């Protein structure tokens, strides 16, 4: 097993300078039976930074992101989100923490039985945020405008195209003004043009709300467009990390394979 490459492993991206760490993953392991998906995975995420975790299908990327959001629990290791170790949190505290985390599902996970408006209102109401009616309405409107789909407010998710659904799902994530957004393969299943639009949307969101983004992807166009930093997940660990340009020039064939 080649040693972990050390191309500015802990350095934040240059433009913003050293920023606060919002998410720390330390020595995560996770197994399903004999299938050791994560083995000693460590990574940091800084405020306002987009980190893309790159990996082959089945390398454990989705497991990683679900561990962060608390849908799965790692076997060992520590996850610190906004200064809180999530393994120590009870249900209430976890829910409160989740209000600051956004999660964009690979399958969007829009509620089929609800309109777009109700989809957006759902997390707003569930988080016990004491919004006034008018404010709720404004927030929904704002979130939809952010993703450029203000006219779909009364449609059902089934009436929307794949790209639109992805945008609505992003709007539903954005409506709580999260500090960290976790994207699970945001461009998978979309046509190249739509994928590019989503990628630029991810950038826009980052710039507008200064959120940190933890992006799982294997779509290199999207990675190039959205990543401040790229981490390569292989063999259950952070095999290599660096900027897109750095990794693209990396000598290791396992890294190089992705950039061909």
């Amino acid at each position, binding site marked *: 097993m080649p040693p972990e490459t050390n191309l500015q492993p802990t350095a934040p991206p240059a433009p913003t300078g050293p920023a606060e760490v919002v998410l720390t993953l330390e020595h995560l392991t996770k197994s399903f039976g004999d299938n050791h998906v994560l083995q000693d995975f460590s990574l940091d995420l800084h405020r306002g930074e987009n980190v893309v975790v790159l990996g082959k299908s089945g390398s454990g990327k989705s497991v990683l992101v679900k561990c962060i959001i608390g849908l799965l629990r790692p076997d060992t290791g520590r996850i610190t989100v906004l200064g809180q170790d999530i393994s120590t949190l009870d249900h209430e505290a976890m829910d409160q923490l989740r209000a600051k985390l956004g999660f964009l599902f690979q399958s969007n996970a829009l509620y089929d*039985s*609800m*309109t777009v408006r*109700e989809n957006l209102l*759902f997390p707003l109401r569930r988080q016990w945020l004491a919004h006034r009616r008018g404010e709720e309405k404004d927030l929904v409107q704002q979130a939809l405008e952010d993703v450029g789909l203000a006219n779909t407010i009364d449609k059902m998710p089934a009436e929307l195209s794949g790209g639109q659904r992805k945008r609505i799902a992003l709007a539903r994530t954005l409506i709580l003004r999260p500090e960290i957004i976790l994207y699970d393969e945001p461009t998978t299943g979309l046509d190249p043009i739509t994928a590019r639009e989503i990628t630029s949307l991810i950038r826009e969101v980052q710039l507008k709300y200064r959120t940190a983004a933890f992006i799982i992807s294997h779509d290199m166009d999207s990675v190039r467009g959205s990543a401040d930093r790229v981490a390569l997940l292989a063999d259950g660990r952070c095999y290599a990390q660096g900027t897109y340009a750095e990794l693209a020039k990396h000598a290791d064939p396992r890294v190089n394979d992705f950039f061909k």
Partner: protein
Amino acid sequence: MPSNSTSNQVRLGLFVVVGVGCLLLILYLLGSQQNLFQKSLPVQADFRNVAGLLPGNNVRLGGITVGTVKKISILSDTTVRVEMNLNQEAQPFVRRNAVASIGTDGLVGNTIINITAGPAPAPVVQAGDVLATHEQASLDAMLATLDVSNKNLVGITTGLREVTDKLNDSKAIWQLLSDEQLPADISRSARNAAAASAQLNGAAADVRQLTQGVRRGQGPLGYLLTDEVFAGQLGHAARQLASTSDTLAATLNGLQRQVQAGGGPAQALLTDTTAARQLRQTVGNVAQSTAKLNQSMTALQHNFLLRGYFRRQAKQKARATADSLEQVGRVR
């Protein structure tokens, strides 16, 4: 989550109200059926046998349900105490001397308690009173009585049968009944007696005519009356005539006496005619009785009882004549 949530809630509310309403209605109707919501009057009655009565069974007064059985408990090995609740409204109609009995509702219905009014006036029943009871004849008892009745009936018919057998065996009666000469003889005797009395009558008329002529003293009679010898002869004749007439009268009287007082063939004839009619009637009655033997008299009973009879017959058979042997054979 529905968009028109308010109207949905109204519909849901309607649904729940109607559903709960129906349930409550059913329960209320059932409750009022069982008099749950009325003031009730507890009374008791002690029975020897309640024939499967259950709490909740109806209590009836004059066929109308006036309450329900509340509790059944065993007081002793021969006494079962039934506590029942009567409607307050029925209280004025139930007297202290009312009699409770166990019955059934229809042929195969529930067991119920019937309250029947007592014969004499009595004060109105009060809470906790113990009513008198009357053990209704049970089916077993009725069957037992029926059994005795059937046995008696069999005895009667057996006796009747023996009587008729004896009548049939007696030749004298049948000869008497079938003898045609006897009435003819009797009627001839009567006719002879009538002819004799007619001749006697004519003779008496002649005598009167003669005595009238004599009294006038004219004609040959006058001559005759003067003749002493003739007068003596005439006196002798008259004496003989009187004697004949007396004998005839005695004969007629005897015949009449015999007819009226009985003790001779004529009497026997007349008496036998009546007996024959009575006999026929008796035989008819026997036939009717036998036909009326209830169908419920089971084949088993029938066979069993007749078997005893036949056994007796068989014992007699050894001593019996060929006639009675035939008779038994016909019966069998």
